[in-house]
């Protein structure tokens, strides 16, 4: 279906199912219960899941397929955000032109940066992309202030022209899709549960599904095959008389456009763009997401993005008081001990947890969470087969004995 194999169609449907029902799936605990703080089904967080999912899917097309480790992808995210906000300021609050412009701008920048950076490979490529991203970050902070509004960040103002919308009356206008406001939310109450369905989330989710579909198609296409060949042995490809650079450049531009789309969506959800979105730690974050989920796999990056964003928002909210509640069943001394032990890893210290988790994944599971799932799956399957062997052996022996 849709030009996919059966397995990929199934995966596509599973992803679509989960994303579309996310407001329900991510809110498994009734509102007001003790576990309600683990609910991730509020629009702001869900939007981050899918937006960073898009970012990581795009990064994976470059890193997962070609093996080129870019440490400067956040630059495209920032460029996307800036172009989207400018579109909101100048043209209209409709998100479609804003997102189109952010994809195009990010694509153009990726073309230039990729053209230069891809002349080298390995660590030199990483340093080159890092240098370009840091340059954009530093410039956005200092000299380009007329365009980027420097440290304050680019925001909407009442005096913006907004040619299509005309002058706005009253407060600041909000982003919308042909009249449907992005922040519109319908809340459904079912028993003790509350589920929020927001326009913004479904808009992002739809775009993520399209992005995911495209990435599946790229993975399965001859083009994707070529990129994989670059990863496994570029020298050999060059010896066969094939110039691999157009292919890697295409992959770089595509992943840059994905990042631009993610940046545009970030701005569409909250029309504000700051330079810190371009800093190299932001580029590091997408690397973390992709590796944690599983580089080179289809679903891995989305998983990784969801995982990190979930922990960033939920883990960092747990404080000592909540811990005390959890361990309240223990004797006092033990309770305090447990809280002291866990304290550095939660709240503000969740970065520590993330760092440790990331190291463990790189050391023991180079294939990320996806590989972990596959290994556990294989473990069970092998045990079954072993059991079969034992039984059939026993049957044979019995037959021989008789």
């Amino acid at each position, binding site marked *: 279906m849709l030009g996919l194999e059966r397995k990929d169609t199934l995966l596509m449907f599973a992803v679509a199912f989960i994303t579309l029902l996310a407001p329900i799936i991510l809110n498994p605990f009734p509102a007001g219960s003790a576990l309600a703080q683990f609910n991730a089904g509020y629009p702001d967080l869900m939007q981050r899941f899918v937006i960073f999912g898009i970012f990581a899917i795009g990064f994976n097309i470059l890193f997962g397929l070609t*093996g080129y*480790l870019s440490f400067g992808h956040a630059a495209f995210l920032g460029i996307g955000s800036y172009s989207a906000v400018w579109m909101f300021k100048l043209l209209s609050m409709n998100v479609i032109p804003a997102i189109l412009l952010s994809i195009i701008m990010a694509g153009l920048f990726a073309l230039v940066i990729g053209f*230069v950076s891809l*002349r*080298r*490979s*390995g*660590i*030199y490529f*990483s*340093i*080159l992309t*890092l*240098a*370009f991203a*840091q*340059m954009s970050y*530093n*410039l956005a*902070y*200092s*000299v*380009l202030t007329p365009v980027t509004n420097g440290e304050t960040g680019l925001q909407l103002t009442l005096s913006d022209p907004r040619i299509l919308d005309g002058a706005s009356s009253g407060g600041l206008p909000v982003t919308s899709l042909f009249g449907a406001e992005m922040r519109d939310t319908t809340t459904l109450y079912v028993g003790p549960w509350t589920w929020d369905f927001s326009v913004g989330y479904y808009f992002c989710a739809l775009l993520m599904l399209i992005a995911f579909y495209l990435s599946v198609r790229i993975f399965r296409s001859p083009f994707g095959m070529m990129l994989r060949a670059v990863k496994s042995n570029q020298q050999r490809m060059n010896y066969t008389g094939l110039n691999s650079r157009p292919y890697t450049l295409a992959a770089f531009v595509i992943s840059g456009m994905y990042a631009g789309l993610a940046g545009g969506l970030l701005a569409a959800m909250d029309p504000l763009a700051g330079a810190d979105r371009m800093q*190299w*730690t932001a580029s*590091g974050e997408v*690397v973390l997401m992709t*590796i944690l989920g599983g580089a080179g796999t289809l679903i891995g990056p989305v998983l990784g993005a969801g995982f990190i964003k979930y922990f960033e928002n939920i883990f960092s909210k747990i404080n000592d008081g909540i811990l005390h509640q959890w361990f309240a069943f223990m004797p006092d001394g033990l309770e305090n001990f447990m809280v002291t032990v866990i304290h*550095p890893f939660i709240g503000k*210290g969740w*970065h*520590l947890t*993330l*760092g*440790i988790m*990331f*190291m463990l994944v*790189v*050391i023991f599971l*180079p294939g990320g969470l996806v590989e972990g799932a596959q290994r556990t799956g294989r473990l069970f399957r092998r045990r079954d087969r072993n059991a079969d062997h034992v039984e059939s052996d026993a049957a044979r022996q019995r037959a021989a004995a008789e």
Partner: protein
Amino acid sequence: MDAILIQILNGLDKGSAYALIALGLTLIFGTLGVVNFAHGALFMIGAFCAVTLQKILTISVTTIDPERTDFLGNPLKVQTPYVENWFGPEIGAAIVDWAVPLAIVLAIPVMVLVGFVMERGLIKHFYKRPHSDQILVTFGLAIVLQEIIKYFYGANPIPTPAPSAFRGSLDIGVWLGFDPFTIIYPYWRLVYFFFAGTIITGVFAFLQFTTFGMVVRAGMADRETVGLLGIDIDKRFTLMFGLAAAVAGLAGVMYTPILSPNYHMGMDFLVLSFVVVVVGGMGSLPGAVLAGFLLGILQSFASMNEVKSLLPGIDQIIIYLVAIVILLTRPRGLMGRRGVMED
């Protein structure tokens, strides 16, 4: 002329820090072939050795002085560091004052130990894995290390002053025959420059003039052959990792009076020192030092007002710009060796 001299001097202290960190990075890369993204964290840990020593030295006992009163009329509480009680007020105060240079004594064993643990515990297992894996695992380690430091010392910069003897500025211009007050340079930066020079000379002398250094250099050139000759090269390389960690740590200790240490200073320096290493040429020790000073001085020239009015924003990007140009025109960097990371 004096303006140019000022910029060269200003570039020297930053350049020294870049050169020291890049030297350590290159030592690790040249010997073990590992790209160490946690090297900035080592620099930071060194800086926090100075902070720790300062804290230890100022642990005080509180006594009540009945003769003096505070503004409420209560007897004044006087904090006296234990050191002053033990060694007498004058020597004690001097020890507290000299906390930063004294921290060198603490930092060397600590850093060598940290280096050993890192190499034996983690990096050893990554020799055979691809460079991107090494980058990722050391990047994770850097995050962990800086979060641990943040947990213990908080997120705010901690001021660690230089000894009072070095707090002023030196009027270098007078020596060179300029008018007084044209070229003024803080003492401590001068100290830092000479300190960096000493360490760099020491490392080079160690590699050049000792048997141990000779074996290490042989191992850098051809590890396998040295191993075939019956030399346990791995052990020596582990020692070199400890040495590189110590160099980064000492660079951090002495840098604290110039920049109050905070937990992310390592990451801030890491990116630039990687650029420095690549510009100098992967695996080339003289290249790393040369590129460190060169980029430091270039940066301070780019922040001159005359240059900035000509090319706005150049001070922000000059290092990256130079790195891009060098990487594209000289694939091996300034002084890179043939055959090292040449893809």
